[in-house]
């Protein structure tokens, strides 16, 4: 009994501490982190396509790029916390106005990057092409709707 209430107390304390430290993230840093992950995703996509379309060698690197891409594909959903709609960002406020639709499009990124990794790991060229097209559509779809274009 004592043990149980102690562990509950500890849990509450930990949660309280965790949430304090989380809410202490400055929106400006959250935006920097978002941009860092997005740039990393673009860089891995660029590297992947150079190898995949035979424009450079390094076939043995292919897997590392799609694994990184798939891992980051799962991170996108937490990159747009409330309060990061203003500041040094090209993310449009529409993201926070239609969270359901935005969520669906982010899920498409997660799903397609996972499929791309699986296709590369399986050595299936046709599936790789198909999944890469889907990755492109997922990225482009989101950027088209939710990213302010450079003026």
């Amino acid at each position, binding site marked *: 009994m004592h043990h149980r209430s102690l562990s509950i107390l500890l849990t509450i304390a930990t949660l309280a501490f965790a949430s304090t430290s989380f809410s202490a993230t400055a929106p400006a840093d959250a935006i920097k982190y978002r941009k860092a992950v997005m740039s990393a*995703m*673009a*860089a*891995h*996509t*660029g*590297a*992947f*396509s150079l190898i995949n*379309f035979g*424009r450079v060698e390094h076939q043995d690197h292919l897997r590392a790029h799609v694994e990184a891409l798939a891992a980051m594909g799962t991170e996108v959903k937490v990159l747009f916390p409330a309060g990061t709609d203003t500041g040094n960002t090209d993310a449009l406020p529409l993201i926070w106005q239609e969270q359901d639709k935005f969520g669906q499009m982010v899920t498409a990124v997660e799903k397609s990057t996972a499929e791309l990794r699986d296709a590369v790991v399986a050595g299936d060229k046709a599936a790789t092409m198909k999944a*890469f*097209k889907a990755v*492109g559509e997922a*990225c*482009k779809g989101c*950027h*088209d*709707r939710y*990213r302010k*274009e*450079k*003026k």
Partner: protein
Amino acid sequence: MAVRPGLRAEPRFFAAPLLSLIAASCLAAAAESGQIERGRDLVHAGGCISCHTGDRPDATPLAGGRRLETPFGIFYSPNLRPDRETGTGGWTDRDFDAALRQGRAPDGSLYYPVFPYPAYAGMSDRDVSAIAAYLRSLPPVHNPVPPHELPWYLRWRQVMLGWNLLWFHPQPFQADQARDAEWNRGAYLVRHLGHCGECHTPRNFLGARDDSRELAGNPDGPDDEEIPGIRQDREGGIGQWTIDDILLFLEMGMLPDGDFAGSSMSEVIDDNTSQLTAADRRAIAVYLQSLAPLHSP
């Protein structure tokens, strides 16, 4: 001279022309359906869908109604579906020709050059007929679109007579005999059918393309966008792009740094360049790479 006995046999005598008549009509039907197919591809290559489709996600393609903001006012694209009241229902080949290559509506009124007739003017007869055949084959959709919102001095369409006199000098596309077929195909697609210069070439104060700076970028593009230059340019433009970079961009929208284009080019990729044959995309890339460097502003 002996008459060949075969021709005397009456059944065959009649059967032969009859068969050839059937064959001919089948051939005509095949040519017709081939023409519609070709017209569909040309409508993609001509970028008709991006502008002539409304802004709502469920808008019917080619039924018009898209709002386009330009430095000269707000335009609403007309309905291209063959609806008699609100679209192109009843248009003859001649009507389509006048619209596409002369910027003139069937009632004689003039279009504004937001519709790229100055580029389409170089289109071949065969392509004009195929586009007409395809549009006619679509199910009609009744979709009235709002009138354009223009400053007073542009509301009277015949003011374009003056503009045309100054800037519109239609020339059919002339193949450059010094270049190969691929380059010429690319030139035809970029300069006429695909009308890339309508966005990527800067315009003068009266809205005419400044072709001395062809494809060098347009700081005042439609929808308030800055349109990048696509000439070879060591610093800006696409000077560092290889043919493969251009091909991947036109097919999927991927930029050489792995980013994916949003903005109005994203629609052009979805509705136009990704639908082209690989050979046509390569022709475009070859043509763009052949242009002399020109620094983007």
